[in-house]
């Protein structure tokens, strides 16, 4: 039996003349925590909205839990939960009342579930305080509580740690880990806090301008992020063209100060150094470094625009 829960095939979404998604394809496997990474307007929320049934794709196909038709997708959504954009809440109702309303619409018979999820997200003491008077962090927690109400098998979370204090971020990260490990809940999480995602995710999908820029497992990303050579010479422009022409290095990143980074040929640095010297280029700096997730993300987003 396939462990692929979500299969997105050639999905496109157009709003007027603007393409929000352009031929996007990826899979999500059961038990994974997938980080969906991209700048604002990249298409992350559009993907989530299509998965959640809030938007219709212009073309392409979405398969969830083996279903592609409307009825099947709606049935699949009963096993899932979504927190998209800023959590939606009735501002003049309390946390408990908001959750009770959702309990009723989801048909959850157990009334004590409301108290359970309030305790999980640490909102059990809000009492009669209405949501209008909640902080951003409290609203995020309420959104998470909502997402946990139906004991989902799959959670789609749009920037779930937005607005949380450092303690809250750690708390929620541990909660996600626990839910994934103990309850085998699959998750798709989008976030700008890449360092947090790197502590949590098993897979990554990079997206920009509505296109998938890369799909990696955590191990692949760790390997890709690990090393690069920083090169600074007396003529970096000439050095770049020589590296491409004579050493076959295609991926060369030019930094703002003119120096270069190369991610290929890391085992052949002696040949690279000799080639530069033979062509009259004097290396001023040649050092080996590590890329963190932010650096890799910025490179990927900029390079592949």
């Amino acid at each position, binding site marked *: 039996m396939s462990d692929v829960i979500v299969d997105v095939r050639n999905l496109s979404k157009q709003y007027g003349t603007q393409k929000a998604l352009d031929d996007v394809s990826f899979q999500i496997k059961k038990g994974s925590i997938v980080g969906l990474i991209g700048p604002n307007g990249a298409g992350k929320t559009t993907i989530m*909205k299509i998965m*959640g*049934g*809030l*938007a*219709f794709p212009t073309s392409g196909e979405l398969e969830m839990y083996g279903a592609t038709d*409307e*009825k099947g997708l*709606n*049935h*699949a*959504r*009963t096993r*899932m*939960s*979504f927190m*998209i954009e800023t959590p*939606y*809440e*009735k*501002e*003049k*109702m309390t946390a408990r*009342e908001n959750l*009770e*309303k*959702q309990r*009723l*619409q*989801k*048909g959850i018979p157990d009334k004590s579930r409301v108290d359970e999820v309030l305790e999980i997200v640490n909102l059990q003491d809000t009492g009669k305080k209405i949501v209008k008077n909640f902080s951003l962090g409290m609203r995020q927690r309420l959104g998470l509580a*909502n997402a946990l109400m*139906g004991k989902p098998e799959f959670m789609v979370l749009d920037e779930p740690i937005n607005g949380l204090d450092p303690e809250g971020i750690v708390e929620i990260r541990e909660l996600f880990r626990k839910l994934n490990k103990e309850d085998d809940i699959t998750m798709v999480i989008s976030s700008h806090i890449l360092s947090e995602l790197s502590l949590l995710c098993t897979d990554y999908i990079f997206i920009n301008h509505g296109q998938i820029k890369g799909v990696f497992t955590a191990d692949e990303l760790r390997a890709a992020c690990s090393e690069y050579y920083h090169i600074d010479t007396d003529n970096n422009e000439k050095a770049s063209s020589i590296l491409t022409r004579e050493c076959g290095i295609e991926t060369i990143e030019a930094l703002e100060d003119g120096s270069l980074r190369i991610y290929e040929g890391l085992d052949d640095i002696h040949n690279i150094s000799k080639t530069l010297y033979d062509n009259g280029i004097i290396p001023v700096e040649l050092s080996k470094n590590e890329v963190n997730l932010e650096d890799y993300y910025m490179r990927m987003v900029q390079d592949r625009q």
Partner: protein
Amino acid sequence: MFNIIKSLNYSTRRDTVNWITIITLIVLPPFICYLVGMLNTDSTSVMTPSAYFASTEMGTVFIFMCFGIMILASKAMSGDASDKTINYELMAGHSRDKVFAGRVIASLLWGGVLVFVIMLLPLGYLSLFNGWGVETNMNEVLLRSALTIFPIMRFTALTIMIASISRSAGKGIALSYALFMVTTLIASILQDMFEIDLNFSFSMTNAATLLSTSNSRYEVINGKTECIFDTSVPGDLIWKTIVVSLVFAAIYLTIAYINFKKTDRD
């Protein structure tokens, strides 16, 4: 679908604006009657349901009831669209058909049926205190009053359509109100200036036809001269009210459904 209705009822009951609206609607008819009685100092008659109907105050009350329909139906249909909490229903796996149907039923109950009942309440409590009265025939008045459920449902459906398409209870109320005022003005001009029969063209003209009397005569009853009003219900008034109201309601709800089914939610 029933879960959606339950959830809507839960939040509707907790909305202060709804309760203020309902209480205002309940208080309005006796207030209007009191005001009319206060203004008409020559009148010594007791306010019976018969006199209340004959005085056409019920038609005046109906106009104010329409504001209640706009508020209650718009809020039931699109109160959750304004803050996007309706999205939870779609993301929970409910089909758009069921979400729409559940909201329409809740809106018709809160905006249509409830307002209909409130509108008829004065007939009940006035009857309890003062008896029916002699000016009108009770069965005919009750039939006319009962038939107003159809133009009420037609108007509620129109409000539902506007609220659903505008995705905002506030916009739904404002646009319904604007449309109400415009159609009232147009109806008034067409009827007064051009003498065009608009009995069934608009829900408020239909309701006005049902809630007003035409001919009257004087009769001596128990030694007292009373003005007796003709409240007979012509057969075509019944079937035309029902058919026209149902057809228009179906058109409005179909338009609202197509829009709800096919468009992306923000």
